[in-house]
């Protein structure tokens, strides 16, 4: 089904409106929009307001990130990395779980390829976040998407996807994401630096590492909107527990995939029940 040239212009205009938070209902063909109808939306927020909204959204979660950053700085040094390398790994790799695993492996003298592969396998989950956020960023120029890819973390992903999917109240998505992700980046780098340069640490006995799953629990609540999403979450939760023994976040990825499958199946079942 080919779209007329007028459709293409409308499609681009709608993408621009959508990127700015407007709701545009569409009926589409396999790859694009055939008909559209715009819904009046609240006035569009300024970049600064959107940025601040993103920062506010991620702020409570950053409390749990600081101890992790400190730990990453410390363990990198303990593994023999040195100041510059420890700081560089947080800037270039920017993934706490992977950095901690890598530090452990390096202190045990693992080979180069094992360390690199381990880091990459642990970070495979970022492809899921990338797929999930991509629809919201596909109007952006490539250089924005490069930047946003670099800044992608579990936390920035979670607060952004929730905000985008619950209708952004006119906040501009790119600024919201930047407000969340850039501040997260800064806090993480600062915490690593503190761990590296000052040897600062929070005693493990305080159990502050529990703060991160707690934050995700709060965000999980906002993503459950009905029976299908509940099925997705439940299935993923079960698989992730079963997969606890699996190394390198493989349990997490399997759980994610199973959860998506469960959600799709649950939705299909509900639809067919409604038809009969």
């Amino acid at each position: 089904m080919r779209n007329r040239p007028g459709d293409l212009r409308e499609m681009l205009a709608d993408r621009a409106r959508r990127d700015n938070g407007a709701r545009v209902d569409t009926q589409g063909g396999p790859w694009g929009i055939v008909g559209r109808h715009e819904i009046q939306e609240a006035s569009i927020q300024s970049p600064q307001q959107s940025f601040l909204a993103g920062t506010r959204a991620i702020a409570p979660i950053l409390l749990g990130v600081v101890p992790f950053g400190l730990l990453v700085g410390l363990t990198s040094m303990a593994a023999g990395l040195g100041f510059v390398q420890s700081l560089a790994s947080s800037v270039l790799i920017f993934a706490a779980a992977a950095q901690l695993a890598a530090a452990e492996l390096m202190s045990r003298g693992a080979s180069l390829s094992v360390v690199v592969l381990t880091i990459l396998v642990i970070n495979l989950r970022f492809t899921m976040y990338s797929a999930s956020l991509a629809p919201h960023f596909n109007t952006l120029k490539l250089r924005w998407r490069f930047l946003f890819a670099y800044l992608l973390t579990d936390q920035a992903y979670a607060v952004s996807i929730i905000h985008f999917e619950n209708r952004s109240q006119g906040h501009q998505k790119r600024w919201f994401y930047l407000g969340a992700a850039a501040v997260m980046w800064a806090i993480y780098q600062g915490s690593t630096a503190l761990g590296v340069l000052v040897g600062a640490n929070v005693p493990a006995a305080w159990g502050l590492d529990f703060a991160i799953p707690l934050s995700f629990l709060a965000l999980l609540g906002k993503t459950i909107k009905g029976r299908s999403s509940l099925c997705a979450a439940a299935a993923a939760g079960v698989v992730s527990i079963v997969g606890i023994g699996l190394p390198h976040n493989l349990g997490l990825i399997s759980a994610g995939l199973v959860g998506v499958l469960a959600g799709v199946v649950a939705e299909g079942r509900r639809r067919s029940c409604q038809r009969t």
Partner: protein
Amino acid sequence: MSADLKTWVIIIVAGLGTFLLRLSFFALFGNHGVPRALERPLTYIPPAVLAALVAPALVKHQGAALIAAHNPRLLAGCVAALVTWKTGSVLWTLVAGMAGFWIFRAILT
């Protein structure tokens, strides 16, 4: 290869690889948008992924999975879930969850 050089190679290669993983669908879906067949499945990624991040952390107790009434994380998680349900606030969930964790841990150990 000296240890120092090896470390740098690790950092740079892993950094680049991780960046490409993050970029993956931003680039792939960039110009044509998301294929319609994937639109609904993608919406299930948030609940699935967040549940997968939360569940093991609630169940872990000294290195193994413990689904029982004397796991302070599990109990604190239930309290936190209740608070999330009632308030929808990340901050209050954190406060209640951490408080619950410390209290239950003190009582149970």
